């Protein structure tokens, strides 16, 4: 095999200009795909962290069975009772993989500053657990003023546009109104502890965070709507869902568990869109690689017809001829990929140095443009392009092997 590899390498280098054009086409294609993947990889990471920590979805959210289907119609029936909540948290927290399990209630209604009012959607959370879930994310989107505090149960954090509409600043008062689970209108005073950026234009004008106790009082219940679970390793999300579902059912608590990506519509849609763009881009590169390799190898077969005849006369079998040209195609893919990795590293380094930022649609603040260097993907892409080039070379290789020896020897 080494001798044929040597022959293939030298033949690739034989027509330098043509090989260079092909290698550049493959290399640029490789870099385009790998850089896009690197960008998407970082973006998926950002969206994941944003969903789990920023949106406070955690890794898993436990609902009472039926909540997602009928919970809005009969909330009391499909909320976790105080006893169920406590037992669930105890069972879940016993798991080694669980960092925290915390109850939440989401409530919506009207918020007023006394003269003007607007709608709000609030997350009722346990402040100390909320801090754990937010983790390092809190520094990325800091709260202006004070954060939630168990000691001041009527303290809230307001989205920055909502605060601007109502003139809320840290320390100002307001009133929220919402319907209780029993259908009565309830109103409670609030103290705006802090103002925060949700990260999205669509939610900044209506989101609030309040304490879990406050939310329970507002809707007049002792139950919890959901229990948010944060895991040590996000990759174990699915396994832990199965595990917890089994244990909670064994304990006689009827629940359903959703994962963070099932609840984050934004993540789901963005990922779907970028997966499609990636597929489209990869298809274009695939066509370029195949066309370039077929063209180069086709020319090589034409130019080396007499050489093929000679090798056949010396006793090389048809499959041997196919192997030589397929190897050459594979080498084009390999050398092109090496150029692609080189281009990727250059662009990756440049982005690291320049640190550009941009504001995606619907996002309230600029985000850094980051491209990840994903070694395992680069390796897979190399294998993929080498395989593709090898396959693309098979068509001209088979044509070369099928040639009549006498005609090939007489080729001028």
């Amino acid at each position, binding site marked *: 095999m*080494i*001798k044929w590899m*040597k*022959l293939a390498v*030298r*033949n690739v280098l*034989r027509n330098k200009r043509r090989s260079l054009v092909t290698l550049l086409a493959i290399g640029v294609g490789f870099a385009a795909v790998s850089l896009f993947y690197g960008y998407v990889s970082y973006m998926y990471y950002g969206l994941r962290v944003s969903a789990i920590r920023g949106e406070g979805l955690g890794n898993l959210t436990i609902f009472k069975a039926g909540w997602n289907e009928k919970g809005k119609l009969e909330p009391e029936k499909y909320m976790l009772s105080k006893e169920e909540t406590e037992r669930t948290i105890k069972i879940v927290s016993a798991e080694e993989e669980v960092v925290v399990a915390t109850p939440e209630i989401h409530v919506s209604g009207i918020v007023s500053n006394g003269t003007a009012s607007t709608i709000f959607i609030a997350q009722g959370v346990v402040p100390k657990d909320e801090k754990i879930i937010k983790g390092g994310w809190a520094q990325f989107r800091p709260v202006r003023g004070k954060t939630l505090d168990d000691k001041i149960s009527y303290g809230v954090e307001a989205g920055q546009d909502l605060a601007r509409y109502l003139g809320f600043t840290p320390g100002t008062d307001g009133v929220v109104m919402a319907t209780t689970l029993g259908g009565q209108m309830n109103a409670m005073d609030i103290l705006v502890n802090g103002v925060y950026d949700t990260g999205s234009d669509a939610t900044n004008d209506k989101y609030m965070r309040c304490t879990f106790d406050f939310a329970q009082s507002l809707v007049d219940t002792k139950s919890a709507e959901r229990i948010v679970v944060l895991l040590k390793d996000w990759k174990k999300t699915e396994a832990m869902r199965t595990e917890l579902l089994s244990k909670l059912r064994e304990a006689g608590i009827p629940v359903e568990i959703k994962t963070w990506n099932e609840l984050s519509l934004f993540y789901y849609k963005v990922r779907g869109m970028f997966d499609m763009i990636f597929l489209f881009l990869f298809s274009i590169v695939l066509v370029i690689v195949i066309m370039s390799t077929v063209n180069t190898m086709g020319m090589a077969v034409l130019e080396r017809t*007499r*050489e093929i*005849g*000679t*090798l*056949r*006369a*010396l*006793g*090389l*079998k*048809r499959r*041997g001829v196919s192997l030589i040209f397929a190897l050459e195609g594979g080498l084009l893919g390999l050398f092109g990929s090496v150029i692609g990795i080189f281009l990727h590293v250059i662009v990756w380094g440049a982005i690291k140095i320049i640190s550009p930022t941009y504001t995606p649609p619907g996002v309230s603040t600029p985000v850094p443009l980051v491209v990840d260097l994903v070694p395992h993907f680069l390796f897979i892409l190399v294998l993929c392009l080498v395989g593709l080039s090898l396959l693309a070379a098979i068509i001209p290789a088979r044509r070369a092997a099928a040639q009549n*020896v*006498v005609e090939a*020897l007489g080729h001028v």
Partner: protein
Amino acid sequence: MALIEMQNIKKDYFLGEAVVHALQGIDLQIDAGEFVAIWGPSGSGKTTLLNLIGAIDEPTEGSLEIAGREVRSLSDNQRSELRNESIGFIFQSFNLVPVFSALENVMLPLQIKGAPSGEAKARALGRLEAVGLADLVHNRPFKMSGGQQQRVAIARALVTDPSLVIADEPTANLDSKTAHMILDLMRDLNEEERTTFIFSTHDQRLLDRVKRLVRMEDGRIMEGGMRQ
């Protein structure tokens, strides 16, 4: 038993609707160790005959046996093996692989056969030394003269110790002095190693150096087809 046994061999080529009768009933026997020249004008069928003897082409009709094996009954792979193991080729235009050195070119038939690299190298060096090219083993073909390239081709043809070497106009692209030198080399190898050489030529100046002459004309053997 003859090394080559041809009986009533015919070969037709189809050029569109026209049929060219390149060989029209050839009977030929060649024994092991012979040094045979196929001589005749252009278009007489010399190359076609050599292509058939070299098992790179098939007759339209007739029987062709090489070392007792009927060529028409062999598959493409079996013919490739036969060529690799038993037949050496020397071409008019040398047909060396341009990206390989002289040594690598000579090693090729052995490597096709699957011989270990070390063994192939040793045998190729021996053959290159025998044709007087020990100093040029690492040169690529474009750095060698026509005569040197043809000597590499001879070394390549002989490296597998074939029973038969076929040379199609081996001196056509060489000057007169080099042509005689190449022919002398082939003849010496024939005498020393008892390798059968069959070569075509239309150069009358070379004919006094051959042991047996087969004269062709219009696809027929006019003289020397059977053993004397």
